[in-house]
């Protein structure tokens, strides 16, 4: 009896504790005249961890009455922790955001400060596409510090060995390349099927290339995804999946683990991956020799689909920015302005971990791969934010889930669009 009753109560606690995780934010400004700015960011590893810390020190030196309290968090931990503190109604003063659907929910709940008045004068200092994810209903709710895009990262040596002269620029060309690589005994594509989000890049890009950017915007607005363009995207993706192009065990693979997508590329065990601008640095970090494949690595944009309405110059990706919590002291905005000064952007760009968004900072990029991304982005004619960020989280996650099912051969293209539409209506 003793044992069972206790475990019963334990159970009750466990099932409810997810909702009981209390708010654990700190107060804003102290009474001793010193202002504290609580800053949560997700650069929990170097180089950016140190860069942010150094910039905060610089700012404190210039503003002795301000203390910047930094809380670096791992990406997923950040999401969970932010959810719990915002449930308590007290967001941090300054925190990471990717704009789009999640930011919109936070804005609707009145948790985020409207920055329109403070940043309109600075709007021209940013590259045009970069501020887009943070502009909601013609108001500014966040400030970018980097913007990147997704494209194919490929191993030039393996492409050469398979007899592929130049990177494919059409979907048919890509399928041909996959066939050639397979024939040469090379794993064509590395994919983190366990993480789901890397898979959604394919579906989203195909929908963009087939239907154009407007189709994706419209679908988000009227919550309808059961359109021929999205079905066609699924059908094209299935053509690729049917060639069995992915590495062994890809359905359980995660992106950053020692046997995951990035490591498979970094160890030269697969010929390409579809990934964002951070790919080269993660490949290097996760590869066995910690150096990746060096200058054998190349970048090409997602190919065009024959007969599609979308242009190859339209980019899909996302960036990192910061939002300001509703109770933040005024110094927060001063600090944010300081972070996006061109000199400070240069410091961030010099690390190779950030594609800068402030005009004039691009000359600090040393890494040729990052420079290639920056150049493609600068010439981009349109931009689509990651779907799991652009749409409300329930819809974005359903896209990830359903596309993962399609890739695993457990759902048809029609089932994918139906499930996503259903999720949008729940």
């Amino acid at each position, binding site marked *: *009896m003793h*044992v*069972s009753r206790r*475990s*019963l109560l334990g159970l*009750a606690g466990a099932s409810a504790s*997810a909702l009981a995780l209390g708010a654990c934010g700190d107060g804003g400004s102290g009474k001793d005249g010193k202002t504290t700015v609580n800053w949560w960011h997700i650069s929990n590893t170097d180089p950016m961890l140190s860069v942010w810390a150094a910039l905060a020190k610089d700012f404190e030196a210039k503003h002795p009455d301000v203390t910047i309290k930094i809380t670096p968090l791992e990406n997923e931990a950040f999401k969970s922790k932010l959810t719990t503190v915002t449930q308590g109604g007290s967001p941090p003063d300054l925190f990471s955001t990717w704009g789009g659907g999640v930011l919109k929910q936070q804005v609707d709940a009145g948790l985020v400060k409207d920055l329109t008045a403070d940043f309109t004068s600075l709007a021209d200092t940013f590259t045009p596409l970069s501020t887009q994810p943070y502009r909601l209903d013609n108001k500014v709710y966040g400030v970018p510090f980097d913007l990147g895009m997704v494209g194919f990262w490929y191993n030039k040596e393996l492409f050469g060995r398979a007899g592929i002269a130049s990177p494919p620029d059409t979907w048919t060309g890509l399928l041909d390349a996959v066939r050639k690589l397979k024939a040469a005994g090379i794993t064509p594509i590395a994919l983190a099927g366990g993480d789901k989000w890397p898979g959604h890049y394919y579906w989203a890009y195909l929908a963009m290339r087939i239907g154009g950017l407007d189709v994706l915007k419209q679908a988000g607005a009227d919550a309808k995804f059961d359109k021929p363009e999205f079905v066609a995207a699924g059908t094209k993706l299935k053509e690729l999946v049917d060639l069995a192009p992915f590495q062994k065990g890809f359905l359980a693979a995660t992106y950053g683990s*020692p046997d995951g997508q990035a490591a498979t590329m970094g160890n030269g065990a697969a010929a390409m991956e579809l990934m964002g601008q951070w790919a080269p640095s993660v490949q290097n970090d996760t590869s066995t020799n910690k150096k990746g494949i060096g200058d054998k690595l190349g970048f090409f944009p997602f190919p065009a689909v024959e007969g599609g309405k979308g242009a190859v110059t339209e980019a899909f990706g996302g960036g990192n920015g910061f939002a300001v919590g509703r109770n933040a002291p005024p110094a927060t905005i001063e600090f944010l302005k300081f972070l996006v000064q061109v000199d400070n952007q240069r410091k961030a760009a010099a690390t190779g971990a950030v594609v800068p968004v402030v005009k004039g900072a691009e000359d600090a990029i040393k890494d040729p791969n990052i420079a290639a991304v920056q150049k493609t982005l600068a010439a981009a004619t349109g931009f689509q934010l990651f779907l799991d960020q652009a749409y409300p989280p329930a819809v974005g*996650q359903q896209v990830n889930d359903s596309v993962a099912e399609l890739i695993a051969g457990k759902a048809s293209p029609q089932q994918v669009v139906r499930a996503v539409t259903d999720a949008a209506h729940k």
Partner: protein
Amino acid sequence: MLLTSSADPDRVGTGPVRSDAVRRQRARRRRVRWPVLAFLVPALLLFGLLVLVPIILAAYTSLFKWNGFGGLPTNFVGLDNFRRLLTDPIFLADLWHGLILIVLSAAVQLPLALGLALLLNQRLRGRGVYRVLFFAPYVLSEVITAVLFTMVFSPNRGLANQVLRVFGAGDVGATWLADPSTVLYVVFLVMTWKYFGFHMILYLTGRQNIPAELTEAAAIDGAGDWQTFRHVTLPLLGPTIRVSLFLSVIGSIQLFDLVWVLTVGGPVHASETMAVTMFQYGFRRYEVGYASAISIAMFVISLVFALAYQRFVMRRDIEGALTTMGGGQR
């Protein structure tokens, strides 16, 4: 009346004395009650705050469509979330996965633990070392266990695959974590690895509480090993087995950390449990109302099971152990 009383002085004398004693006892009990309650207050407060309030809050939230941001929910939807549960293929699959894990635990994990416990109860060289070794996995945190096994079952460089390769069977598998049809059994394997030691210790303690006289008597009566086990050891281990089975079932229903780190419920939800689904909806999709409904469903399932199990299976173990205030004196 008078006659009897004079003829039986004892009865006359004791009557009022006894009722007096009862009255005094009752009064003492009443007096005792207040200090007892006073001392219970901190515990009751904590219990209420950390257990009752969250349950009530979860139940309340489960009636709303709510994304979890800001204040309390406002969009009341009645029982819609629960209706959705009954048609959600992922949740229904969770129930199925839970059942498979429970049945496998009862059929494989617990007998294994029992067998090892009996084995380690024998005179055996290095018995203590074995006991520690078998119990060690239980001491590890679930997260560490799961990380360990993602490495073991890593498709290319994992230990499992290396071993298979040594035996010339490199292509047999070791992509079991990536295969929707096998992943749940890998989860079960890891669960077993982690928890059999715990159940083994339970059984070992239970076994050592069986007086040696009984097994000796059985031996003198000519019972063989199997007969002794079947007719002496097993029945006397009954209470321990029932508790162990109970813990195992509740553990399977609540399974989260291990699955979350090992597979995140994938591929394609093939290893998802109720708790994982709850987390996915609550913290990935921000459908906190629906996630609360899942947590309430989990709670009700566990509660019903726990009550039914105690009522029907563990009744004889707990008879007399159920105490009411002052009941022990009656």
